[in-house]
């Protein structure tokens, strides 16, 4: 696959000017995400109120794919009920590992820009790390990693 289909304007823009980037002082949920293979290292913080994600922020160091994915993820789940966010996490994971559903949900919207990464297996982990981390924060597990059981490239998980 020509990687230029992945490194398109929207993704480059989110990398350059990430949305919801920084700390969230009064967070109710947090998790740390690490991809030890390439060094992507991020933190996701949430403020959950009445089963709804009222506020979300992320910070850390990562490649452009991970950063843009995190930025667009925060924009997509902010103000949404937890159940909606969880469903989106699952749909995103499916899209970048198995492939896009024939009828993607409208919530996926611009995130379909990442669909092509399925053909770059060594980079899938970069795109999926923020989503793993969000999932870990929602379930109050301390951290996420792209290795071991959580490996999105491992077969049979989803």
């Amino acid at each position, binding site marked *: *696959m*020509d*990687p*230029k289909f*992945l*490194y398109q304007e929207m993704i*480059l823009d989110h990398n350059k000017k990430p949305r919801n980037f920084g700390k969230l002082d009064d967070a109710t949920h947090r998790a740390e995400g690490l991809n030890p*293979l*390439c*060094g992507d*290292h991020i933190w996701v913080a949430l403020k959950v109120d009445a089963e709804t994600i009222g506020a979300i922020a992320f910070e850390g*160091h*990562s*490649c*452009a*794919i991970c950063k843009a994915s995190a930025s667009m993820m925060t924009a997509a789940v902010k103000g949404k009920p937890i159940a909606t966010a969880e469903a989106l996490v699952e749909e995103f994971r499916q899209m970048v590992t198995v492939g896009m559903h024939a009828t993607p949900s409208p919530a996926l919207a611009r995130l379909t820009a990442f669909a092509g990464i399925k053909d*770059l297996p*060594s*980079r899938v982990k*970069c795109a999926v790390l923020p989503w793993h981390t969000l999932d870990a924060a929602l379930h109050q597990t301390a951290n996420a990693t792209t290795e071991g059981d959580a490996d999105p490239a491992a077969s049979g998980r989803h």
Partner: protein
Amino acid sequence: MNAPAVGPMTPSASTLDIARIRADFPILSAVTVNGKPLVYLDNGASAQMPRQVIDRLVRYHTHEHANIHRGVHYLSETATNAYETARKTVQRFLNAKEDREIIFTANVTDSINLVAHSYGGAFLSAGDEVVITHLEHHANIVPWQMLRDEKGVKLRVAPINDAGEVILEEYEKLFNARTKFVSITHVSNALGTINPVKAMIDIAHRHGVPIMIDGAQAVQHMTVDVQALECDFYAFTGHKLYGPTGIGVLYGKAALLEKMRPHRGGGDMILSVTFEKTTYNTIPFKFEAGTPQIAQAIQLAAAIDYVNAIGLTSIAQHEQALLSYATERINSLGGVRIYGEAKHKSAVISFYVGDVHPHDVGTLLNGEGVAVRTGHHCAQPVMQRFGIPATARASFAFYNTFEEVDALVTAISKVQKLFD
């Protein structure tokens, strides 16, 4: 290893017939990436294999294969002869005194683990110190840490300067009465630094300490003479020397190898076995338990023959010309930082493009057909020393061309434009 004089931006003439050499490597023309010709600059991770070495495997399995050191039948003797001839080829390649000083292993990692376990296990005890450098690959860190955790030995690390060179005075300062072993890399895989190993070996011996050299990134670029170096152990691997994976070498001085205990038990490493007592075989067989990588050892010898036919002096000259040209052209782009600026360097360029993460650089370069390594290069302490998580690394072989350097530079400039 001085770089030949290269005029600004003009590739120097090479003594090698690169077009003819490239024709020996089928993969270089068989593979296109994203519709573009393959520009393979990841030779430091694994080099490609010439047809002569590929064909050696076919010939072996067509005419020569059986288990070695066992049968009295024709094929077993043929295979044994080819395997032991391969050992002699390696002996001559390193200029070792005797062929029994050459042990076939799986790779350099395996060789270092053998020494850490067999030498360290027998001769090091709690409080003893092992000296390494800040340049080491994880393969020359972790086995010693395991020994530390097992036996309580201490690990001492010689620091490097901003150019990525070991600071010799600081290295020597680490030696004391408790220093019992030294294990250092010959050439840094992450930065390309060529260590002054002869001086470092002499320092170790002045303090009465045996020393091991990790030659994974050295033997394919320069002549190594273990007798001239006087090192006690030397390790290298087949697949970075245009040979197959799964075969490595450990050279050790016979007197030391004889004193060491075997690290693995099994067939072929014994003289006699009863349930009460086993008598170990002599060296090198004591360290080659079980059926070894027979075909791969024979292919390794074919790879050494191939490299010798081209000549390591011509290889070094061409690679140094590529290094000078690539360094100049990358520096002229502006905004690309090269890590590793040692005075003596092998043909490796570790770099960072602006603030673009190396994995993005690697993916985009791949889109242009250019294969480089991205990541921490199994040398995280080196990355930590320079405060970066990773680099992109172009590592050259004698079959690379100045046009391929141009393709790399063009691809990097495209990354710069995209992330502008």
